[in-house]
């Protein structure tokens, strides 16, 4: 028996907006052009990175194609002091948070295992161990509680954590532990699951018999299922959930039902496990197309704006290409210096031996 609730759509694939009492949104107050711009840029980052990988400049790239609405919609609900814990595919969220997109590339180029300062934009480093970040987000939320920054009603104080995870991560034990902790302690954390329906080659049916959103109920908190290709629905759901979290009402699990249009990463051969027909069906539900249609039909997207966006895209692409090639190799001493706060004597000796070895080879 499969139990599914329909995901809530506000902006449908034809670009028509319909309000829904279940997911209120002050749509006239939304800067839809900004959403559009950010989705276009997120896709451009992704497209350029794939090209860079094909050219041998990156070893690997996990594409977000098709997931732009989920990421940009969620990101636009954030306040500056909210803190994000991403997986490794949230390039759209990174873009919205103000992370330099060139900084996302180093991890995949092999010049770093991190790439940016998590505190600069309240956007943590990518986590490659599936689900591990859900507990870090929970712990951070415990810190916010202890700081007293929940439920004060003061918008300058109240803050929350936004944890991203995929459909596969819900099978990991640690993710389930994160749900247990968040619920039992009523933590200010929103779990945003992009159910892109594939964990490499495992379809969602391998992970669960019921929808992502319904699983929250078992832990004791609310689950909301939205159309992950509808930026308005993702924005509305995340705004509501983050507001509730900041107010001290506890966690929410948002399921943004979307589709991973590209393979898991550039190293994956998805023709081996899924049909092109499924992909084509989801192409017709494209998140950017439907928003463009809506903006055009509501007179919000004049030629001038489109040209400006196109120009911004081009310069972003150039910035990524030149920025990628300019990413510096780490110094041979850096792993030694960054393992501990103070370099232990025996590790220092190893470092000196290593540096001599490296120098001798030059």
């Amino acid at each position: 028996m499969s139990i599914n609730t329909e995901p809530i759509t506000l902006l449908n694939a034809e670009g028509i907006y319909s309000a829904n009492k279940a997911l209120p949104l002050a749509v006239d107050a939304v800067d839809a052009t900004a959403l559009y711009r950010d989705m276009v840029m997120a896709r451009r980052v992704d497209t350029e990175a794939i090209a860079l990988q094909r050219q041998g400049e990156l070893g690997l790239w996990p594409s977000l194609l098709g997931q732009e609405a989920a990421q940009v919609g969620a990101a636009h609900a954030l306040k500056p002091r909210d803190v994000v814990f991403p997986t490794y595919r949230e390039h759209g969220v990174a873009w919205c948070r103000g992370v330099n997109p060139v900084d996302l590339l180093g991890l995949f180029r092999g010049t770093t295992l991190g790439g940016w300062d998590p505190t600069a934009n309240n956007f943590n480093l990518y986590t490659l161990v599936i689900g591990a970040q859900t507990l870090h987000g929970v712990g951070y939320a415990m810190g916010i509680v202890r700081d007293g920054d929940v439920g004060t009603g003061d918008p300058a104080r109240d803050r929350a954590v936004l944890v991203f995870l995929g459909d596969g991560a819900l099978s990991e034990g640690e993710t389930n532990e994160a749900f247990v902790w968040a619920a039992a302690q009523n933590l200010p954390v929103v779990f945003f699951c992009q159910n892109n329906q594939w964990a490499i080659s495992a379809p969602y049916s391998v992970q669960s018999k019921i929808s992502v959103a319904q699983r929250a109920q078992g832990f004791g908190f609310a689950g909301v299922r939205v159309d992950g290709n509808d930026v308005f629905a993702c924005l509305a759901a995340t705004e509501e959930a983050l507001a509730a979290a900041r107010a001290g009402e506890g966690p929410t699990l948002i399921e943004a039902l979307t589709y991973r249009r590209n393979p898991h990463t550039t190293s994956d051969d998805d023709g081996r496990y899924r049909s092109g027909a499924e992909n084509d069906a989801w192409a017709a539900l494209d998140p950017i197309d439907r928003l463009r249609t809506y903006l055009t039909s509501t007179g919000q997207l004049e030629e001038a704006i489109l040209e400006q966006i196109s120009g911004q895209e081009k310069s972003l692409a150039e910035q990524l290409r030149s920025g990628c090639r300019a990413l510096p190799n780490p110094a041979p001493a850096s792993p030694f210096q960054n393992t501990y706060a103070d370099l232990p004597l025996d590790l220092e000796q190893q470092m000196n031996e290593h540096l001599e070895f490296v120098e001798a080879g030059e």
Partner: protein
Amino acid sequence: MSATSTRMPLAHALNLGLRHAMEADDKVMLLGEDIGQLGGVFRVTDGLQKAFGDHRVVDSPLGEAGIVGSAIGLAMAGYRPVCEIQFDGFVFPAMNQIITQLAKFRHRSEGRISVPVVIRIPVGGGIGAIEHHSESPEAYFAHTAGLKVVSPSTSQEAYDMMGLAIRSDDPVIFLEPKRSYWLKGDVDSGNSPEELQKATVVREGQDLTLVAYGALMPVALKAAEVCQREGRNIEVIDLRSLSPIDDKTLIESVERTGRMVVAHEASRTAGLGAEVAARVQDAAFHSLLSPVIRVTGYDTPYPPSRLEEDWLPGLDRILDGIDRSFTY
């Protein structure tokens, strides 16, 4: 015993160390199973929830991955969490968070992210316990770059090292010898302690260096006493820090004595004894009169408690190891 010293069991010294650290810095907080209301199954956190409240002494859900994973998040939010893992054998569900996350954040972030988490674990056997309650998992941690691994052997060391571990900006695995929890010793809370990463010579001698840590320290000192009566002068070193290892103290000693025995409860293969032996033969080969002898647990899982007395490296097996060194 100085005027400012109090005699107390090792478990109480840990409690005092935690209390003082929490008084000194209100970012220090504790999390673990049964540490609040119950005060911990060994009472190490007794009275602390009452003193500091349930926001700072957290009775956690039953999940070691959750304990360590949340501690990492708390550290990122500016707190200094001290986790308790209830028993050595139950640290394994937390290994993913410890090894792939806790140990690696500083390195991954090129020094930007500090995760000053202490993980306290009661370790070791000799208490007649059931399965999973007598483990010695130190090698897994010592082999993981990015972790500091320490083990106090006396009440004074327990008090001092707790403070040092909490103040360290690195993640520290703090291995408490549970069989020594009720061993009494003097504690001077005003003591100026040795740095965390130092080994200490607790008994000077010229004929052989006996290295041990944790619960085997009293046994090692007993072995030295017995040898004294037989005319052999054993130098006893408390390793204290299992990662990083204080090579300097070990090498300086063996260069004088020419002989070394290392004792640990943990299984023989790939244990800390192997690491010490490798370092010593590398740095002091020509000073050695005999090979470095290891007296350890066997390469079996920890046995049923009816067998543990002979399985563990006790006084007799350590004396045998010392004798074997002198056959060379």
